[in-house]
């Protein structure tokens, strides 16, 4: 006997969760199966929609012949991407026709963002407007994003209050002074200084960010002083470090920290620090491992629970077990070497892209490994990429190509299975890294795939 549900969602990221909740709200009985703990823990926690429209045509015709990895002197020339966009919706029409936003429509993005706002509640900001916010990230760049954690709010680049950026010597991936310098170079409209303080030094040099977050959550004593107080005391002497253009010294009105200010009790930690420092406190989203990503994961899985969606992590879906008349009936879940059938009336594939392992590749080609769906690609491997690393890389847009209902198409342009839908990174057509569109694509395609799967299953 198979483990049955109306809709089975395969995947554990933003697209899968969006699809599961959307399907559930259409009245379907939904189960979500994720091979591993959610990849949200590797995400920055920012929800982008569309930050740039990158050029899809080079500035001059590409040289004939295969890419040379830069060995030839006549380099590609690509125009700079258009952006940062003030309004993501305004740029959608200028994306290629095969882009997921063009396929499922701008309304899907809007509704996807609305759903996210509802699920994220007061933990997120940005829902009051269509316009992008500019959030500084730990690389010193400023990212256009549609939604951002409340913890990052006081750090927006459009805010002109002077800011102090705090770093710790033991957090090697994060250099506060370099970060402040890069922000300045980027022309932000506020005065900024970076400072390295003694706090994390009380911990071992390679202490995990979760350790620091836990110590602040529980206000553990650090050499006899409660952690939050100790951190505030370390920062206190630097509140006048910012010097404006005229050489004047202003007391800073906001202080930025790497994103480890507590896990479960982040609001409490920030509030206490703000109180002690007499300045707003914000977090700067970091690369993985990411506390904002972990917090979002917790919140969204709680939402799944509240929504009545069944979910499990730990075992992969490894293939189709039975199909009839162009419909998948059961898929096989590998439970520690033994395959167990999971049946559903409709399936949503949200397994991620090349990084998330929803797509696999070798010298022979690019494959979708779970259901073996068709992946459009040039026959010649040398056409997968172009010379300029920042050019329009064909591989970046690899993935399954859906119809307007979200069903992946086969090589002839028809739906490969009548009851299989795809969402998120496994869907091709977007260049998410250059566009800053990964989250938005997940929300838009997740919403459509979830609803359509529910319709398919309950009709």
């Amino acid at each position, binding site marked *: *006997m198979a*483990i049955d549900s109306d809709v089975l969602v395969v995947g554990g990221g933003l697209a899968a969760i969006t699809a599961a909740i959307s399907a559930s709200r259409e009245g379907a009985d939904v189960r979500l*199966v994720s091979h*591993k*703990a959610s*990849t949200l*823990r*590797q995400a920055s926690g920012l929800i982008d929609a569309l930050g740039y429209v990158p050029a899809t045509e080079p500035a001059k015709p590409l040289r004939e012949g295969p890419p040379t990895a830069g060995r030839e002197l006549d380099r590609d020339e690509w125009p700079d991407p258009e952006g940062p966009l003030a309004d993501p919706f305004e740029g959608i029409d200028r994306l290629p026709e095969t882009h997921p936003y063009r396929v499922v429509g701008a309304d899907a993005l809007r509704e996807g963002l609305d759903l996210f706002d509802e699920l994220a509640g007061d933990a997120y900001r940005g829902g009051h407007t269509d316009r992008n916010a500019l959030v500084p990230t730990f690389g010193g760049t400023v990212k256009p994003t549609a939604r951002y954690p409340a913890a990052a709010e006081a750090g927006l680049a459009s805010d002109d209050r002077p800011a102090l950026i705090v770093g710790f010597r033991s957090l090697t991936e994060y250099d506060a002074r370099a970060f402040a310098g890069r922000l300045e170079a980027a022309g932000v409209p506020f005065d900024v200084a970076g400072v390295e303080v003694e706090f994390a030094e009380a*911990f*071992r040099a*390679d*202490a*995990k*960010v*979760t*350790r620091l977050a*836990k110590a602040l959550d*529980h206000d553990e004593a650090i050499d006899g002083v409660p952690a939050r107080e100790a951190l505030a005391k370390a920062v206190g002497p630097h509140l006048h470090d910012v010097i404006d253009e005229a050489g004047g010294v202003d007391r800073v009105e906001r202080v930025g920290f790497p994103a480890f200010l507590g896990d*479960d009790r982040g609001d409490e930690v920030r509030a206490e620090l703000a109180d002690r420092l007499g300045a707003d406190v914000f977090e700067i989203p970091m690369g*993985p*491992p990411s506390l904002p990503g*972990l917090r979002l994961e*917790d919140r969204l*899985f709680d939402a799944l*629970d509240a929504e*009545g969606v*069944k*979910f*499990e*992590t*730990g*075992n992969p879906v490894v293939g189709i077990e039975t199909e009839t008349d162009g419909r998948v009936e059961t898929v096989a*879940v590998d*439970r*520690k*070497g*033994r395959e*167990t059938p999971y049946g559903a009336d409709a399936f949503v594939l949200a397994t991620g892209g090349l990084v*998330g*392992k929803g797509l696999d590749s070798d010298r022979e080609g690019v494959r979708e490994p779970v259901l073996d769906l068709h992946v459009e690609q040039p026959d010649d491997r040398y056409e997968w990429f172009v010379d300029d690393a920042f050019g329009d890389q064909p591989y970046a847009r690899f993935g399954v190509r859906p119809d307007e209902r979200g069903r992946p198409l086969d090589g002839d342009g028809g739906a490969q299975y009548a009851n299989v839908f795809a969402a998120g990174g496994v869907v091709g057509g977007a260049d998410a890294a250059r566009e800053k569109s990964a989250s938005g694509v997940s929300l838009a395609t997740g919403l459509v795939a979830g609803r359509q799967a529910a319709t398919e299953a309950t009709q």
Partner: protein
Amino acid sequence: MTRHTDDGDGKDANGANGTDGERGGVSEPSTGPGVPETGRDEQPSIFVPDDGSGGEAAATDGGVESATGGSDSAELDPGAYDPVDVFPGGDLDLREGADSCYKCTSCDTSCPVAEVDDEFPGPKFQGPEQWRLKRKDDHDIDESITSCSNCMRCDDACPSSVPLSQMHNEARGQFVEAQMEKLSVEYVRNRILANYRTSARLASMFPRTASFAMNFGPVRWAMEKTLGIPKERDFPEFATETFREWWKARGGAQVESSDKRVAYFHGCYSNYNTPEVGKAMVRVYEHFGYEVMVPPQKCSGTPMFANGMLKDARRHAETNVENMVEAIGEGADVIASCTSCSLSLRQEYPELFDIHGIEDLSEHTYEALEYLRIHEDLEGELAGTKLADEQSFAYHAPCHARNQGLSRQAVETFRDVDNVTMEDVGDSCSGISGTYGWKEEKYEKSMKIGEEMFEHMEDAEGDVGMTECPTCAMQMEHGTGYEIKHPLQLLEETVAA
């Protein structure tokens, strides 16, 4: 039907004395009765025990050696293995796993120990990094490996499927074998804790006396001072009648069936401490028409892996594999009520040992609720049922359940039962991790890890806890004072009462 009433205790004495009568059958290349399929278990494993073949085998590394000269590898074909032989020294080649690590650090952020102890370098170091370091002959295993609690959350977190817990088990076994002082209090204490079954078997001969003595103040003070067992912990009560005694007294199986058979792997705790869980298993399965078999068995090895006592674990595994595989040959699937036992039989056994039939056991092992959810219409059975008295439960998913995809099954199963409210208290680790929280030097860490779970339990509506794991149950009770039940007990009350 001797299989129903087989008295495992007769064989136990052998095992406890370390004389393994069954060993001969293991190295026999021809398929024994009850082994449904052959060939698939013949792959290199990490651990080759000291079966008299000399000091070299003492090291836990030995996969390649096993492929060429191990105890049961005479006809193995070296051509069947990936010939990755870059590093010197015989090893099960975990290089592919080490190379799959792209340093995303997801494992570290999922580690409950690293979250409370910055001296612990985390799973990324303990796994792929240490694996590379110890390719060099003169490189010792870092002592911090003993701080790993073997919760195996890193396995679940890794997006690249690096076999982290396998690497940890291997390193820990090697550390204990080669670097740990065998006369040290720590070693002796760990050996005693790892071999819980031995103590429990003795204690259950005089259960009342043992329950009293083990929790008697002066005794506990002495245990902390001499053995490093924290006096804060309450030793579990020993049942006055073990599960096996009950099984024997009731005359074994009361349902016979040739097509619905299960072999119950009760493990130590359901036998010696909470026989009510084992009884619930039997009654529920009989309710669904299954013939229950209770083959002779020893410890699943979970506490031994966690303490690096791989030799002990292997000895017990040989008995378990032999007896369970025999039951499989008679048409049974193997059912465990403890999620750590089921994980051990499914995952750690084939990862660590090369015993004939071990892959078959792995493929036929299920957790008790999982099996019913796959093979019976449990949802239909539970629809419209009602618990006599209204009760809310604070459910904690054991880490080892998480790894088998079972962390939500109890919540889902009982969601629609009237008068039952099941609240998931979140994804934190209970912190006890089997024997981990039973060590004086780990006690505080263990309680600090568990703090989040205690808080969530207090916040939850219910005042009865629920979990599949007996040591999680201990910790839940220790931290909150709640009574803790197993999902099988609730299932018994709702469908089999």
